[in-house]
């Protein structure tokens, strides 16, 4: 899903001007985006729906005193992230997990091919695409939350490194480190999958 930043800025400006129907347009545009992100962070549909509603309300209130609508992106994801983390803490205590770089790098001078992308041309690639998609969803779910949140913001939500750092209140080097390790972990996890009939 590609972000249409121009459309987002336009919608946010309409909300700020208090135009009729602006809230509905705002909600329709952002609800699914917030929901998908929350689902992948919270892991529960009911929690994700709560996060959508709470975030829409908070964002609308915040917008009235936000001078630069573009700044909403970082703020919005910070709000969603905090709400998701609160849900997670409420549901169960999860110890902080780290991804060790050493375990994710090639060992002994040899390297596997990593994930194999489905061919765009091959009509038979549908089954493999579905298999890879499902395996990716599970692999993302299994990333430690601190890494998963950065991967989702950067790769799926298409936030810049700076926006991600601002949203999470962490340094730029930390964002880069977490994104790199998340990619390495996904690379390693999905390396064994191949289209039917092909092997590494």
């Amino acid at each position, binding site marked *: *899903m590609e972000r249409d930043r121009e459309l987002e800025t336009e919608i946010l400006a309409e909300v700020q001007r208090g135009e009729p129907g602006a*809230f*509905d347009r705002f*909600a*329709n545009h952002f*609800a*699914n985006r917030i*929901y*998908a992100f929350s*689902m*992948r962070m919270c892991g529960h549909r009911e929690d994700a*729906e709560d996060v*959508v*509603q709470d975030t*829409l*309300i908070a964002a*609308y*209130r915040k917008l009235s005193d936000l001078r630069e609508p573009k700044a909403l992106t970082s703020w919005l994801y910070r709000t969603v992230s905090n709400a998701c983390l609160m849900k997670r803490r409420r549901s169960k205590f999860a110890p902080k997990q780290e991804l060790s*770089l050493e375990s994710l*790098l*090639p060992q002994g*001078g*040899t*390297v*596997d*091919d*990593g*994930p*194999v*992308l*489905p061919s765009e041309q091959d009509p038979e690639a549908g089954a493999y*695409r579905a298999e*890879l*998609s*499902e395996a*990716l*969803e599970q692999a*993302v779910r299994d990333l430690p939350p601190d890494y998963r949140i950065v991967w989702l913001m950067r*790769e*799926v939500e298409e936030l810049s*490194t700076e926006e991600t750092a601002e949203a999470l209140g962490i340094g730029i080097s930390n964002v*880069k480190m977490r*994104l*790199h390790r998340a*990619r*390495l972990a*996904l*690379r390693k996890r*999905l*390396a064994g999958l191949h289209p039917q009939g092909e092997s590494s």
Partner: protein
Amino acid sequence: MNEPHDRSQCRKLADRLSEYLDGELPEDLRREVESHFRDCVTCEKFLVSLGRTRELAHLLPRLELPPDVIRKLTESAREELGL
């Protein structure tokens, strides 16, 4: 060319490969990475596989709320906001 060489260089650069792919490496380090690839097939292969991993996000299934749930959430939010 993939002659035996100092693997500590591979290790050092492997840590920065996402920054290289994202175009976020400082110029001098970018040149160092590219020069290393010319001598190290292993690192080059690793980079290619990491580049493919970077393209995976668009394969994630689209997660969407049913329209009636969006309508319900929007109505509740509107009520809360007094709109």
